[in-house]
């Protein structure tokens, strides 16, 4: 069985780019999953973490985390926004492995993501740190 990419990627490895388009129905489903009747009405823009969540789903697949049922825990998250992101807007996400280290059988990995619009203007950034258990350095 092939090694998952999380085990073989070196620092600087690029993931994506991912093209994320959140439809109105997806935006409503996300807002309903995380909110309640007192939650803000985001109108024609997205709840703040919607795009980050969508890109994480892509990353998880590319990294092969769940395909091999690796025990993965999300331990840290950073995010920042330069402007609102609209429902239906195409967002490009460029990701890279920013840090990778092994300690006591655990693999600590940080993936940084830059988000940009169709004009190439940056709209936000994020950084995700995960621990994958049971991985030793080569």
């Amino acid at each position, binding site marked *: 069985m092939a090694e998952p990419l999380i085990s073989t990627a070196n620092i600087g490895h690029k993931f994506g780019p991912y093209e994320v388009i959140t439809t109105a129905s997806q935006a409503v489903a996300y807002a309903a999953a995380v909110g309640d009747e*007192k939650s803000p009405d985001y109108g024609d823009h997205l709840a703040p*973490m919607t795009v980050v969540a969508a890109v994480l789903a*892509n990353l998880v697949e590319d990294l092969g985390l769940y395909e091999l049922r690796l025990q993965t825990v999300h*331990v*840290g998250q950073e995010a920042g926004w330069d402007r609102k992101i609209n429902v239906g807007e195409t967002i490009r996400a460029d990701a890279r492995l920013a840090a990778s280290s092994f300690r006591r059988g655990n693999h600590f990995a940080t993936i940084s993501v830059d988000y940009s619009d169709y004009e190439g203007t940056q709209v936000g950034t994020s950084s995700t740190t995960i621990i994958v258990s049971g991985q030793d350095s080569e």
Partner: protein
Amino acid sequence: MNNRAVGDSLRGFVREITQSRVDAYAEASGDHNPIHVDEAFASTTQFGTRIAHGMLSLAFVTEMLVNEFPNTWHSGGKLKVRFSAPVVPGETVTTYGEITSIDDTGKKPTAICKVGCKKLDGVDAILGRATVPLE
């Protein structure tokens, strides 16, 4: 001109994390990590049972920031958090925050806030910092 001051509390809220909410989040986000949705798998992990997505609890924290800073959070807001304890479906969490300092050195003043999400037993599920431009 803003009327924010160091020591101001952010208006947090309480939300129950149910397995149905976790399942709905998995569907909506596309994150189907079995540690969140597959009890048989989750029982073999260090947690012994399913846990909620950290991003779900973090969405509550960002919702608090949207409520508190509706005109500026989306345009210049930043946060950095650590997921410090798992949340198990059935638990209730409370978001909280406080302005710890205000940076007046830039074009616009920026509030630096301690933010988090605490479980009923007082344990922080999320702990971190947000910076938000002020109007």
